[in-house]
């Protein structure tokens, strides 16, 4: 017996471990995400360290600087060719830095930037006890109608936490369309969803409705996340990996080696189909496609309107980005299976959104159903499965974001004693009372309706053309029909604003600070520029339409 064996009953000599490799992180390529994450964490510290009265300004400054810097970083990367020739995978395979990712990140950052202006708006609500307040609850934790709420209002509290929350959401959204493996994708999903659930609950007025919206959003979102996670597990079982490239290889059949631990499941198509369907479900939930749209109207209506605008624009961009990457990078080999399904979903989404919107009487719900119909139009471009399909979806998302944010910013201006006057009947005669505001809103509505010379038309044309070239002519015809249905309710709002008598007890139009004015002006400018001279942006989207794998 050797001396070393004395303790061998419970100890064996370990093999000397390989040195742990420090992960190689391409900080430059990840800069946009790192900047926003860093700023979000700084924002939390600001809440702790900065005195209450200067928090609002500090937070706003921080958010604007961070988003601008991140956007500059995106531009720098794009100028450096990371969108085209130098596109690649970063962070040990977790993040793709390529054209679609950079384009969508730029769109999300710009959308977030103009949204932050509406977050920071403090002139619309009547001042509480001499202090200007924004559209967020004084103290989110206090029960609506309770003494503690009254005390919080009286003390002039404001929820400045919305800025770091929004930044966290933005950071998650930046990762979402760039995620290059399923786990990163899931983490990004949670990182941007959780702050959004919270933001939805923070309305200053109509707090119960706001909290109800948040709970609905959270519960349904949690369900969809669960489906999503289960889908990841099944796909892992099929492919033996969560990395996009590896899964794609297994789907294509180029990789045959079977992981011995997964010998029983690998290559089992049932796992792939069910798992893929569950992944799609999770993403279509975020997109708001029928039949996963049930949360949209309630959440859009209940959430504070600046949050609604931000969520409607940026979430959609991020989710469609992830959907594109999943379908085009991971599952192109499965396109015979997913295309018919997506066809059906696009059709019911376009028609469902447009038809149900007709009966709406609340402007925010109306815009919610309109966003559903638009998700259907974008899906038509997704289905094309061509480079034109990708670029048209990218362009549509850019165009749609700014129309949406602008439209919701206008909604924040029309107010009565109870806060925002969102019931449509109260908008009657707005064109007589405030021609400028009504005219601006009419521009956004016409853009939603896809009238030529607005960005809505360019986007719709691009998407439908891609769909038609991809052999989905029927889808184009159905899209055109639902556009006609949708036009009806946009026009109804215009009729109401311009051709109806104003009500004596109608709402007033608040005069906003330069912040909201900037948001609306940017919205109008982008809407018209993308409508009249879209060529530059179409080129950009065209160059950005190649994924890396």
């Amino acid at each position: 017996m050797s001396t070393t064996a004395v303790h061998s009953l419970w100890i064996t000599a370990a093999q000397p471990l390989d040195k742990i490799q420090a992960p190689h992180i391409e900080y430059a390529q990840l800069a946009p995400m790192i900047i926003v994450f860093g700023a979000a964490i700084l924002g939390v510290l600001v809440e702790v360290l900065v005195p209450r009265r200067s928090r609002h300004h500090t937070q706003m400054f921080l958010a604007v600087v961070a988003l601008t810097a991140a956007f500059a970083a995106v531009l720098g990367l794009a100028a450096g060719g990371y969108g085209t020739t130098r596109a690649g995978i970063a962070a040990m395979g977790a993040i793709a830095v390529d054209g679609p990712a950079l384009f969508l990140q730029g769109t999300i950052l710009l959308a977030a930037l103009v949204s932050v202006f509406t977050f920071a708006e403090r002139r619309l609500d009547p001042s509480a006890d001499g202090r200007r307040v924004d559209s967020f609850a004084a103290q989110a934790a206090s029960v609506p109608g309770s003494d503690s709420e009254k005390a919080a209002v009286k003390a002039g509290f404001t929820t400045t936490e919305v800025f770091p929350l929004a930044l966290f959401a933005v950071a998650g959204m930046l990762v979402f369309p760039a995620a290059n493996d399923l786990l990163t994708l899931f983490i990004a999903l949670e990182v941007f969803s959780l702050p959004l659930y919270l933001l939805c609950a923070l309305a200053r007025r109509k707090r119960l409705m706001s909290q109800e919206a948040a709970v609905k959003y959270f519960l349904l979102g949690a369900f969809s996340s669960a489906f999503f996670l289960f889908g990841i597990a099944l796909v892992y079982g099929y492919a033996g990996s969560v990395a996009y490239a590896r899964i794609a290889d297994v789907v294509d059949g180029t990789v045959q080696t079977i992981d011995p631990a997964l010998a029983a499941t690998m290559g089992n198509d049932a796992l792939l189909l069910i798992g893929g369907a569950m992944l799609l479900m999770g993403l279509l939930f975020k997109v708001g496609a029928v039949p996963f749209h049930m949360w949209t109207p309630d959440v859009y209506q209940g959430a504070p309107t600046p949050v609604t605008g931000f969520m409607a624009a940026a979430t959609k961009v991020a989710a469609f980005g992830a959907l594109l990457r999943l379908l085009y990078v991971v599952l192109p080999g499965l396109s015979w299976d997913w295309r018919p399904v997506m066809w059906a979903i696009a059709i019911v989404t376009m028609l469902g959104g447009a038809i149900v919107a007709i009966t709406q009487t609340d402007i925010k719900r109306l815009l919610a159903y309109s966003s559903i119909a638009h998700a259907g139009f974008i899906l038509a471009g997704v289905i094309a499965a061509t480079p034109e399909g990708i670029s048209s979806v990218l362009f549509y998302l850019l165009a749609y974001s700014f129309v949406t944010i602008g439209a919701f910013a206008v909604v924040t201006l029309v107010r009565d004693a109870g806060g925002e006057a969102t019931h449509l009947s109260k908008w009657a005669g707005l064109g007589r009372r405030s021609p400028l505001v009504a005219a601006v809103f009419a521009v956004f509505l016409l853009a939603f309706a896809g009238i030529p010379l607005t960005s809505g038309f360019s986007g719709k044309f691009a998407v439908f053309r891609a769909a038609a070239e991809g052999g989905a002519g029927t889808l184009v015809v159905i899209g055109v029909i639902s556009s006609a249905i949708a036009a009806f309710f946009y026009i109804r709002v215009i009729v109401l604003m311009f051709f109806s008598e104003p009500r004596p007890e109608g709402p007033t139009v608040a005069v906003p600070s330069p912040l909201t004015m900037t948001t609306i002006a940017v919205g109008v400018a982008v809407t018209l520029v993308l409508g009249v001279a879209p060529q530059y942006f179409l080129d950009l989207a065209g160059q950005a339409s190649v994924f890396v794998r």
Partner: protein
Amino acid sequence: MSFPLLTAAAALPALGAIATAAVPAGRRTAAKWLALLVSLGTLALAAVIAVRFEPGGERYQLTESHAWIADFGVRYELGVDGIAVALIALTAVLIPFIILAGWNDADPAPDAAPGLGGAAPGSGGTPAGAKHYRWRPTQGFFALILSVEAMVILSFEATDVFLFYILFEAMLIPMYFLIGGFGDRAHAGSDEHAAAQRSYAAVKFLLYNLVGGLIMLAAVIGLYVVAGNFSLTEIAAARADGTLEMAATIERLLFLGFFFAFAVKAPLWPLHTWLPNAMGESTAPVAVLITAVVDKVGTFAMLRFCLGLFPEASAWATPVILGLALVSIVYGALLAVGQRDIKRLIAYASISHFGFIVMGIFAMTTQGQSGSTLYMVNHGISTAALMLVAGFLISRRGSRLIADYGGVQKVAPVLAGTFLIGGLATLSLPGLAPFVSEFLVLVGTFTRYPVVGVIATLGIVLAALYTLVLYQRTMTGPVKEEVRTLPDLRLRELVVVTPLIALLIFLGVYPKPLTDIVNPAVEHTMSDVRQKDPRPEVEAAQ
């Protein structure tokens, strides 16, 4: 590079519209004069186009071509043929009269009458504290008219299908506000009822045309998928020399997509029902703008785009379209006979006339198509004369119902006389311009489709009935009590009516300047559809 004449003719009214809209609220009269001057300037530019255009020269002249949205294969391409020149001239001639006739239509009434034109700013019990922008209905009215003019002229000039489509759709928006925002104050019902009727008419107008336009959008996309670009000249050339093959089914579907939109716009039975509402509820000048100017884009586009892009499908669809045109002619005329409202009567008469225009286009003969083009011009002028005088009459009495009038010719002889001439032009009395065109259309149709031509003459008989009955009931007979104090035409109104009547007589006696411009263009169109005129049968007997 030569001066971009075609762009200028559209840019001038467009810039004029912006300038008019920007006139300060207190300066209504300045806005009116500015709009009138801009429309006269546009008329001058149209005259230059007509003079510079050489009838015997290239098919498309004064062309301009610039890159626009390369990604969609879209270019900013303009060019005019004789048909376009005639219609641009019609538009440019009519707009100054429309502006003059509508001089006071959009002035804010002190008693808060309905509509955008009505209310004084701040009425309606606005809660205190709201900030007011001063609402400027007059400026808006004239700016909208000028913007419609700009888009209509540019759509006549566009030789790029996509550019045309954009204008075709975009012009709906200002028209919509003109119909819905500036209604006829002479309404039988209450103010609220009138407002409801007007917004109904505006929405109906917009929805009909938007649906037509969206169906056309599907066809436009389809055309791109098939042809790869939008240039009318390139596609037509490629079709002619066989480099661009289209399967018959595809061509027919695309043709139907285009034709549907144009048939809504024209309007052809059974897609016509928006027109009586829109014309009835809008002011007379806006009604003229709809039927005499904007609707012509529909018939013009049939000639240029349906026949030019889809010749085989056009020939395939001809029997059905001729049938629809016949129904339009007879049905429109019959309904006109039964109307009790003067403006709706003129609207139904227009539907009948649009039937003639469509029939002439699809008769596929030189005479028919020349006749149709002349008809577009002449119908514009004659309807403008009739409708504007009717508008003057209605504004005096405050009622659109025929039964409310009687014996006007004894009270206001000049008004009655001009109304009669307008009416006679509408029923195509020889010596007035519409006769020439109606005759050509009928002859052109008869040589190829004798039965259709014969049935269409029914329309003429009915036209005589509805116009003369209208004249008889309103102008002759015992003078009604309410009519007794009606003033005759004022100077401004005479300035509107006299030149129109002079034009009707001139073109009725001497249509050569117009036919000279139009005929070569029609021959090109005939060669597009690879049709020759039927040989006269007398020749064989010789």
